[in-house]
Every structure is written in structure tokens, then in C-alpha cells.
């Protein structure tokens, strides 16, 4: 059976920078169309390729996240797939009903009530009247905006509009759902509900294209990602890998770590070098999961630092901080003070229980006692964690840390199961 729902083949789209000229080209194109000619393939004056030779396909059950900088052509791509604009080159093949959330509440009339707008909006999206009547209660229930459903839409908050728009769109039962950065205005409850629903819809066979700048959301929701830049598809693959690539591309210097001193930090301390080592003291750039890690930082204290608190933090690809090691909490080291001048600080992590992936380090420094913030330096070092020999990779899950554990299994009546769990330290 053919599971492919979307096939984008070598699609290009050009736009014009100049409005007047664009309108003029509009007439030229119109006349071409009337004469039965296709699109003009060459760039004319003031035109540029907004999308350039993009190809990919999408199967049932896939949720593809499209990430990339502003102006990369992400929304243009969705508009092409939705048929709002036609390609200048290439073809887009679609199978099934398309639901698009490119602009939330497009077609909402501010004066009409939410309930009335459901009818109009759903009809604009292509639902028949009987279908709408049949689904009205479900839509209202999903939107969950209470009594506001009978109030005019102009009294809605943007989040409420998002709820209503999303509720209508997903109840169209599309085979292909296009979602463009719409969860941004929703509150946490709605966002989680929408994400859960999209996951559920994908499992039942829908294909979803999801554009977001929230990499954490993309990471949680999508099982595949496409990195878009300057109208081109730069990378296409497993979400985590593509996010890493995108984040790396967004970092001004692509190779190696660089120290980004938080504003004001220069007056307190200046980091010169940070190196990562394995247990044998070798400098490393990659490490097996759960192996010991040593971080060594050479820095210049620009003021006298009396027993400061250093906190190394580990960042996941989408820049979330997922773990921290703090000098204050260390039993073994008596917290040193640093006089003005150069120093070396070393910390040792007995087993770095990070799952395979790409991580970066940052450090924050606080004054002792009142915990006043002194400075922060990000992008200290990059570390690639690779799986150890016995490790099964948990893929497609937003998991970064695997806690060390031991496992036992008993029958319910076994004396071990009845016994209170012994305290490890007792």
C-alpha cells in the first residue's frame, strides 16, 4: 500500500522584492497563463528564489518539524503545499484532505460569536454543513473556552482564538495537517493538549508538518526534522540530529567552543581555556556514555573572589539546561578563594550518565553567602557522547539522562515484595 501522502519534487518559488514590479509581473504571468504557457523559469529583475529546488516526501504517521532561521522559506513552503501559491518549478503531489493552520483564525469575524464563527471557519476550510453540525460539540469541547463560545470573537484573547482555530482545523479529519507556529500563543494546558492530540492523530495515520522556533517542542513532537535555510533544504533526518545541526549553524563560529562572556562578566573573571579529559587525563572531544569526565578550566580572576560558587551546566542540543554540577554541593573540595590573577579549576564527574548526543557546557559564578550573580560564560566546550558497548539507545524520546539503577522482579506474594524497601544507607 502506498503510504506516501506528500511528495515535493524539485520545487522552486520566486518572489519579487519590489511591489510595483511584482504587480506588473502579475499581469505578465496572467497573460502567459491565458495563452496556455507555464511559469517563467528565469529570474526577472528584482526577483529572488524564496524556495530553491526542494524535494522531500512524507508518509502516514510522520510528524516532520521544519526549523530554520527567519526568512528561510518555511511558511512559503507550507503555503505551496497548501496550494495558496503555485510553484514556479517542480511539482507537489498530495493525497487526501489537507488541513492547514497557517494563520490562526483567518476568516474569524470579530463581531460574530465563537459558535457562529465555527460554522463559517469550518465551511471555509471545506467542511459541509452536516459535518460541522455533527462535530460542533466536539469542537467546542476541545476549544474549552467556556461561556466565551457565545461571546463575539473580538472579546477573545489571542490564546482563545488559537484554541478555537486549532479545534476547528483538527476536527476536519485531514490526512495532512500543516501547522505554522501557532502553539506559541496558547497557554501550557492548551499546548500540551494540542501536542498530545497531534501525536495521537499521527498514530492514527495522519501526516503532520510542524513549523516552530521552539526547538524543545519540535524535539518532543516530531519524529523527523528538516533544517531549512535560504530557501533550501539543508538537512533532513532524525529530529535530535537535525536540531543539533541547526543549533550549530546558528552559533556564529561553527568549529570548536567559544567563550561568550555574559555582559558585565569581563570585570570579574575571564575564561582562557576549558578542556575535557577522560579518566586517564587525555584531552577528549567525545566520551562513552557513563564514563568519568574531568573538566579543567583556566581563568583569570579580575577581582578577588572569596570562596565563590562555580556551577557548570550541561546544555542539550536545543539549549535546554539538563544538568548542573555546583562547587557548593561538593563534599571533597574545600571551596577555595581566588586572588586576582590566573587560576586553574578542575572538577571530576564520577560517571557522566548522559545519553548519546551532542552537549555543550556553560559556567556561572556566584559570590559566596548571598549568592549574588557574578558572571556567566556560555559555550565553554562541546562534548559528543557516544553509546557504550551495552547501551540500547532510547530514540525519538526527549531523554538526555539515564539514571543508574538496579532492577529486580518478583511474584506479588514473594516475601521480598512484602518487605519494606530497605534504606540504602541504613
Amino acid at each position, binding site marked *: 500500500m502506498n503510504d506516501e501522502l506528500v511528495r515535493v519534487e524539485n520545487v522552486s518559488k520566486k518572489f519579487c522584492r519590489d511591489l510595483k514590479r511584482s504587480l506588473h509581473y502579475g499581469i505578465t504571468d496572467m497573460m502567459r*497563463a491565458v495563452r496556455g504557457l507555464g511559469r517563467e523559469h528565469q529570474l526577472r529583475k528584482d526577483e529572488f528564489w524564496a524556495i530553491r529546488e526542494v524535494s522531500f516526501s512524507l508518509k502516514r504517521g510522520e510528524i516532520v518539524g521544519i526549523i530554520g532561521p527567519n526568512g528561510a522559506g518555511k511558511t512559503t513552503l507550507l503555503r505551496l*503545499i497548501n496550494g495558496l501559491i503555485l510553484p514556479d518549478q517542480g511539482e507537489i503531489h498530495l493525497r487526501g484532505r489537507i488541513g492547514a493552520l*497557517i494563520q490562526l483564525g483567518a*476568516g474569524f469575524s470579530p463581531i460574530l460569536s465563537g459558535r457562529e464563527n465555527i460554522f463559517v471557519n469550518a465551511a471555509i476550510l471545506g467542511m459541509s*454543513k452536516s459535518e460541522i453540525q455533527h462535530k460542533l460539540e466536539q469542537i467546542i469541547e476541545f476549544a474549552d473556552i467556556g461561556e466565551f463560545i457565545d461571546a463575539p470573537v473580538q472579546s477573545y484573547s489571542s490564546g482563545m482564538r488559537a484554541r478555537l482555530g486549532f479545534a476547528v482545523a483538527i476536527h476536519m479529519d485531514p490526512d495532512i495537517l500543516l501547522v505554522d507556529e501557532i502553539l506559541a500563543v496558547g497557554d501550557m494546558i492548551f499546548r500540551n493538549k494540542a501536542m498530545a492530540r497531534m501525536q495521537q492523530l499521527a498514530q492514527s495515520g495522519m501526516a503532520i508538518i510542524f513549523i516552530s522556533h521552539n526547538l524543545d517542542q519540535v524535539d518532543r513532537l516530531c519524529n523527523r526534522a528538516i533544517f531549512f535555510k535560504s530557501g533550501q533544504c539543508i538537512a533532513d533526518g532524525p529530529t535530535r540530529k537535525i536540531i543539533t545541526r541547526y543549533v550549530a549553524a546558528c552559533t556564529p563560529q561553527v568549529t570548536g567552543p567559544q567563550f561568550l562572556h555574559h555582559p558585565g562578566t569581563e570585570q570579574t573573571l575571564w575564561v582562557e581555556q576549558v578542556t575535557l579529559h577522560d579518566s586517564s587525563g587525555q584531552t577528549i572531544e567525545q566520551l562513552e556514555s557513563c564514563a568519568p569526565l574531568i573538566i579543567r578550566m583556566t581563568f583569570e580572576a579580575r577581582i578577588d573572589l572569596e570562596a565563590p560558587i562555580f556551577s557548570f551546566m550541561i546544555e542539550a542540543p536545543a539549549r535546554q539546561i539538563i544538568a548542573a554540577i555546583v562547587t557548593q554541593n561538593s563534599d571533597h573540595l574545600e571551596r577555595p578563594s581566588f586572588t586576582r590573577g590566573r587560576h586553574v579549576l578542575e572538577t571530576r564527574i564520577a560517571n557522566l550518565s548522559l545519553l548519546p548526543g551532542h552537549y555543550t557546557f556553560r559556567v556561572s559564578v556566584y559570590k559566596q553567602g548571598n549568592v549574588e550573580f557574578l558572571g556567566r560564560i556560555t559555550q565553554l566546550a562541546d562534548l559528543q557522547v557516544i553509546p557504550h558497548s551495552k547501551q540500547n539507545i532510547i530514540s525519538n524520546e526527549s531523554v538526555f539522562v539515564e539514571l543508574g539503577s538496579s532492577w529486580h522482579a518478583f511474584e506479588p506474594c514473594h516475601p521480598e515484595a512484602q518487605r519494606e524497601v530497605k534504606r540504602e544507607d541504613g
Partner: protein
Amino acid sequence: MSDHPGIVPLEETIHTSDSNVIHPITILRSVLHNFWKSRELAWLLIVRENKQRYRQSKFGLLWVLITPLLSTLIFAFLLHKKILNIESTEIPYPIYVMLGTMLWQIFSESVTTPLKTFNTFVPIMIKINMYREAPILSGLVQVLFLMVLQLLLTGMLLAFFHGISPTILLAPLLILPLIIFGTAIGILLVPLGILYKDVGEGSNVLLRIGFLVTPIAYPAPQEWPWSLLVTLNPVVPLLQGCRDWMAKGVMSDPFAYGMTCGGTLLILMVALIFYHITIPVVLERLGA
């Protein structure tokens, strides 16, 4: 559908850079198909438009009737006081002008409505892929609605001042070609009109001039070269035909009326094909 993959064959769509001109008949068929498919949507859009218009209004529908009613009252007053003086027409002059003005109003409304309705839907159409025929259909229905209201009013006035025969029941059918002719011109204007505002402005000016050069408030000139105004103006046979029918129950020149009806149908087909081909090209120039 999504629960039974493979059982119900999925509808296939292809967006391509190739021209969508296949064959005029194929295009016409898909236009008609789209009209049929968008009927519910068009209706909802009309309801929405009217709800929007009248929710912030106390008098509501009355406004549609007030303008023609007032103008007729003023007009009757002027004539009664002998302020206006015009040579006699075959039909009593006030009736002649009243019917002519009403018919011209319906025609000019048909010309301007497609572009006007389309413009109100541009913000939605550039964000949602809906049937592009829906605004045309909803505009047409609104013009028809206007026609019915105008006819009711005029019918009452006619009955009161002039007397009517049952033949007037055919009037809506006879006005239809006038509306279709206007709408066809209006549809032809849409693609260019959404790119350049000049088209809308220009057509308003032309319609105002058209009101003056069409024998509406004066009898049709017979001597050359002024008779050209009548022979070259395709609105005249349609308008005259309806006016004759409503006032006298017969048409003075049914042949001209019939010929123009035929031409109207042709223009309508050309307009629909042109619209179908050009709208997707033009719409994307309007951006998001």
C-alpha cells in the same frame, strides 16, 4: 478516511508550475463543479456578511429600502410641483424614470459586486485555500437579493400609481440577463482589479457616465448620430426590454433583447474561464 487507509481512495491533488489551461470545456466544467461545491460556503458567507452588517445596526434591512423609497418620494414631489419638465414618453414619465433607474442600479451593482466581494475575501483567501468561486457566487446571490427587494418595492409603487398585470411576475426572469451581463463584466474586472485599484475607481466613473449616456431619464434618441448611443450600448436592449415588460406587459424589440441575451451567455463563459485561469496567478501577488 484516515481510519481506513486504502479502503476509500484518497483524493489526489497536484500543484505544478504548468499552465492550468487544458480545454475550455474542461475548465467550464470545473468552474461549475466549484460553484456547486461552494454553495454552502457562499451561503454562510452571505449570512456572515449580513449579520456583520446589521448586528451593529438598529434598522437592519430597512436601509436597503430607504434609499430608493426616499429618492422616489423626492422625485414625485419635484414632478408634482412642476419643477421637472420633460417631453412625454410612451410610458408615463415618472414610471419610465423610476423603472430605468432601478434597472440601472441593479446592473451597476452587478458590475461592481464581484470585485467588491472578492476584495473582502482576499485576506482569507491568501491564508486559506478555499473555493475561489465562492465570493462570486455569494456576490451574485446578494445582487439577486437586492433585485427581489427592489422589485417588491417597485411593484408596490407600480400597482399604486400605474397598475400592473400578472405579466410582471415574469420580471425577475427577464432582469436576470441584465444581472448576468453585469456580473460577467464584473468577473472580467476582478483579476486586474485586485492588482490595481484603478480598475475599481475607473469602473465607478464609467458606470456614472453610462447612466447619463443610456436612455434612462430621457427617451431613446432616434436621429443619427445620437442613435449610436442606443445601437452600440449592449445594456440598452436588456434594460429597455425589462422596462417595457414591467410597464406595458410587452416588449417593443424582443429580437434585440434575445440577441443580447445570447451574447451575454457567451461573455459569461469567457469571463468564467478567464477568471479560473488567472485568479491563482494574481492572488499570489497579494502576499500573506
